[in-house]
């Protein structure tokens, strides 16, 4: 079982590498890969496709700054965040707004694995852990 999962992950990684052109996920390549998998089914197609989806979503998340906000946010702020993140990571990062009332106030920006927490809810959580 374990070796099946490992092989499926390795195959998915190969497919993922083929889907990336100049460091950016190419929609055409992804469509081509899916067609190939449809025609030539690998040993564990579900496992392979799940791993493939995970790799692609992780890569897409690196180019996406999800800005969670409790109050109103304007386009200028989003553009400023996108510009700042693009400069910081050295690759194009687009910002998208996502309302989240649970933050109480402030912002929470997620780019890939990194989260920039500047919200009241985050501060309170840090306080509850520290005390």
């Amino acid at each position, binding site marked *: 079982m*374990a070796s099946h999962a490992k092989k499926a*992950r390795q195959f998915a*990684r190969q497919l993922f590498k083929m889907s990336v052109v100049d460091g950016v996920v190419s929609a055409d390549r992804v469509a081509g890969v899916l067609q190939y998998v449809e025609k030539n089914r690998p040993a564990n197609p579900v496992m392979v496709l799940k791993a493939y989806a*995970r*790799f692609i979503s*992780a890569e897409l998340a690196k180019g996406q700054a999800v800005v969670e906000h409790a109050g109103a946010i304007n386009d200028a702020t989003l553009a400023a965040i996108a510009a700042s993140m693009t400069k910081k990571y050295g690759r194009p990062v687009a910002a998208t707004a996502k309302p989240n009332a649970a933050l109480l106030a402030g*912002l929470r*920006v*997620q780019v*890939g*694995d*990194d*989260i*920039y*927490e*500047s919200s009241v809810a*985050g*501060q309170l959580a*840090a*306080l509850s*852990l*520290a*005390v």
Partner: protein
Amino acid sequence: MSTVLEQIEQQIAKLSSKAVKKNTGNIRTVADGVAKIDGLSAVMYNEMVQFPGGAIGIALNLEEDEVGCVVLGDVSLLKEGDEVTTTGKLLSVPVGKALLGRAVDALGNPVDGKGPIAATETYPVEKIAPGIIVRKSVSQPLFTGIMAIDSMIPIGRGQRELIIGDRGTGKTTICIDTIINQAKINKVGLASGDPKFRPVYSIYVAVGQKNSNIVRTMSALEAAGALEFTIIVAAPAADNPANQYLAPFSGASMGEWFMENGMDALIVYDDLSKHAVAYRQISLILKRPSGREAYPGDVFYLHSRLLERAAKVVAIEVDYGLVEQLRQKFGPRLEVIHSDVLTIDLAQWGRAPIAGNLPYYIASPILEKTLRTDTPRAVFLIQKEVADRIVAKPGTRDYGYLTVQTALFAEPHLLFQVKPGAFRPPPKVDSAVVLLEPRARDLGGFIEYVRPGAFRRSLAAGADVVALVSHDTRMILGRTVAGTLQLSEDGKGLHFEIAVPPTTASRDLLVSIERGDVAGASFAFTTPQGGDRWSFKEKPAVRELLDVDLIDVTVTALPAYPETSVAMRSLQAARPPLSRILAGYYMDTL
């Protein structure tokens, strides 16, 4: 109540409105106490990670697309998709005297029902053990109280001792008796009021034992009045393998606190074979190669990491105010010497690494002293201007005496710059950190040192010495009997000056020297009877040259002695044919 409020207020004050960066991941699977996590791209090996619900984990497997974490806490509360964040901290345990008389688990939490432990300090569980060079040799005995051992195979403080034997032969009993004996000695020593008396505190780490055995040991120590000098770190058989794996490292950290605070500690790992079994379990659940019917290959590295811990740091400071501050800040764990570093013999600490923050006006003499000390490496924070001069390339404005002097003995590396804002009060200039790595002197299985005065007899006798290029007699640059080669020996080494002939070949050579292509010097000699001394105690062997007959000095691009240098005198260089080559072979001191 007011203290609670103060604590909360302090925490609030610490919280700033700045955005906090966190690296996160999501749990993919949780099984056997191990969580596989997607993300956490910035996690460090052995870093603590925070799970929801307060549980923590240690990142032990860093793979290409996932991280394997051992969970220290209730795994049943975790589920797929839970967010995990890095903490930026290595796993730490509480340390200090507050732990004496207590039984704690691998994370330092009390397990004896005697309430919370008032420890104020924490130490990281994993520390890099220092090399053997910086260790003090074993000089003081540690009495086990068992006459057969103390008389025939005595144990010293700083020594490691392995007890092996069949089941039920009394291995643990020897350890417990030793702990009890330390307690007896401590009581007598402390009662005597002798200020020089150094008590020995004991740490008993029980790995993979039955709880009943641990309780019996505690009772035995309590009955003997030894528990007040003892910390028990318990990771019983029922504990998860991660805790059993960590317990000896936690115990080592607790022991290091005593060591660094001017006390002695005896640590008993009971036993390391069960620790190896726990590590095997960890390897199995992390899908690491565990070894067929054996232990994982790195179990030896695991145990060597554990058994090699302990170190000593000495600080030398001339400013009395700073000496006091250092003593207050670090207490007895840092030996602070109030003296001028230029007057101290650095060789007394053996071949130890040297680090320092050097004031501008005495940077050169300290550097010179350090370069003449046998050290594996030296790191200095100095003014950027001085650092630039140390690492300057030939032909540049900064290239000068300091560059040549440093290059004689060491290979300098400019590590990074430090801005004025890093200091209080901020200076007006930038600083930099330089690393000096002594050049290798292995001459093929042995190291050669030239003792001061080795050339004295040869020079006084007016030996006929020639100056050559790469020991080639077809190109003679000068000769002592002709007055074109001047030789002298000073405190630094053999110094020679050559009045170079006005030939095309000589001019070509001067250009090569100026460019830095030819930068070394060498010499040929014969050794008369008793002129050298060999020592085979160290590896590589050491040869000391005490008295040599000098035959030639030579300018070469590939010197046998990397500490040599050759340079051109700039003033004369501008006026050929009176060009001179100034060179020197600098001696090492043993």
